[in-house]
């Protein structure tokens, strides 16, 4: 069976429709380990990718005012127990362009695997990028996932990112994102991770609201069990008039797991505002009893609470914050 077939099978096993990769109207990029397996461009979206020996370099550019109707699928993975994958991604959305990206990352057998991502993303004025990345890991935890990204969100652009790693063992996760948000642009970053065993998580996200009226949200949802550890660092900077930001971190800790959260807030303009909230603890007792009064066992209740915490919002989070935070983030609010 070829590597491509194996990656397709991994898609199947996760209930994803492999036909999407054969659809000529849908762009994709597929890589297994350091090998580039398949790529497709669509009108308005240029996708250049090559193997370098050190990894895979991909350049993606969406033309000015192009609206890419179908999501670009990125399918990455290391399917054997050992291996390395390094993706160097350069993504540009020109002014007024829109794109959804769905990234599927498969490491089902990892025992000694490294997955490195270095991404540079530039969103032109009035462009819109919705990026969803879902990881599917195996039971061993022998994997190191190290994504790095620098993102520039241009004037009146919208950037939404949703990272999830809730299936299988995390292994080692070390996220480091830097996002600059320009005038009247909006950014939402969500990370949802479930750490088990001896998994270690470090998530550092720095959101710089550089432009007048820029708005941003960093939302982190982490559940930890066994001896897993997590260090969450959310940094929000408000450097211009009307900049509004919010950092929202919630972690549920069970067993002997250890979690820390460090919201860092910095404001350099008197008319900018950044707020934060962080909650770390075991499952709330009142939540447990409310569910048990419906007949759920304690185990079922905990699973439901953790599952809800890690579930993806279907609508942008800006409108789902509690009223005070939502008011801060509301469009046009200065």
């Amino acid at each position: 069976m070829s590597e491509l077939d194996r990656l397709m099978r991994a898609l199947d096993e996760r209930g994803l429709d492999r036909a999407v990769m054969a659809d000529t109207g849908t762009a994709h990029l597929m890589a297994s380990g350091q090998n580039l397996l398949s790529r497709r461009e669509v009108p308005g979206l240029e996708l250049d990718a090559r193997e370098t020996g050190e990894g895979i370099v991909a350049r993606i550019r969406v033309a000015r005012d192009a609206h890419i109707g179908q999501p670009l699928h990125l399918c990455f993975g290391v399917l054997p127990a050992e291996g390395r994958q390094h993706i160097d991604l350069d993504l540009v959305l020109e002014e007024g362009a829109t794109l959804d990206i769905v990234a599927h990352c498969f490491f089902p057998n990892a025992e000694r695997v490294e997955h490195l991502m270095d991404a540079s993303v530039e969103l032109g004025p009035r462009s819109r990028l919705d990026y969803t990345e879902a990881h599917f890991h195996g039971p061993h935890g022998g994997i190191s996932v190290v994504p790095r990204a620098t993102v520039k969100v241009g004037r009146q652009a919208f950037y939404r990112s949703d990272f999830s790693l809730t299936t299988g063992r995390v292994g080692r996760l070390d996220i480091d994102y830097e996002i600059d948000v320009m005038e009247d642009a909006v950014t939402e970053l969500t990370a949802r991770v479930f750490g088990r065993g001896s998994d270690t998580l470090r998530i550092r996200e720095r959101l710089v609201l550089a432009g007048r009226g820029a708005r941003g949200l960093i939302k982190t949802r982490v559940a930890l069990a066994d001896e897993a550890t997590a260090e969450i660092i959310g940094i929000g900077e408000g450097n211009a008039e009307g900049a509004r930001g919010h950092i929202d971190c919630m972690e549920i800790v069970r067993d002997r797991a250890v979690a820390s959260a460090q919201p860092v807030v910095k404001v350099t303009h008197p008319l900018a505002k950044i707020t934060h909230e962080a909650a770390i603890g075991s499952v709330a007792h009142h939540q447990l009893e409310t569910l048990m009064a419906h007949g759920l066992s304690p185990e079922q209740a905990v699973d439901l609470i953790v599952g809800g915490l890690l579930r993806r919002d279907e609508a942008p989070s800006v409108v789902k914050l509690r009223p005070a935070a939502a008011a801060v983030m509301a469009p046009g609010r200065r």
Partner: protein
Amino acid sequence: MALLEITGLVFRVPARRLLDGIDLSLEGGEIHALVGTNGTGKSTLAYLVMGCEGYRPDRGEIRFDGSRIDGLPLFERARLGISLAWQEPARFEGLSVRDYLSLGRNRADAADCLHRVGLSPADYLERKVDKTLSGGERKRIELASVLALAPRLVILDEPTAGIDLLSIREIINVIGSFKRQGSAVLLITHREEVTRIADRASQLCGGRIVCSGDPGSVAANYMGRACRRCDGMECHDE
């Protein structure tokens, strides 16, 4: 045989008896209102019947359908058919109203239950039971979820607290619909007009039942500061 039979119930915290010899019984399909000022033990009694953590009787018995339940954990009591609609129900990130109304052994139509508490299914079924709901909305959804369970005994802890005045009649109708579907209701309330829907009522003061009987006379006793135990001094010390 009564559905719920409480006899000689005593519950202490350090240096204080919160409940001091409670005797109370409920028949199937009966609504029994509990009135009394804050701190008289109404919610404590509710938590003891439901089996919440930290609430185990120091003395006395709680029987449900003839069997003692005071040693059972909360969820086992729920599985016997007891449920509690909390005064301040918890919120759950990521859990939709539709899912919440389908918890447990629920077989009822979620949309119908929402409709019965005055909420539009089209507007609410896909919303999350989280902090985006107002207190009143969350309260109605809790009532809808308990309706959906069709419990044999439901404890309603201040079901009209946080509900706007114009909607109190709707909530009273919901309480009535528990009775119509055959559930017994232990109704904790401060509102005289809510008490009127009950078949019987009891007034609590200082952890004791000081007056029992028809709801009108118990409410009048309560509102008239006519507590025989404390001459109204404790009953109305808010």
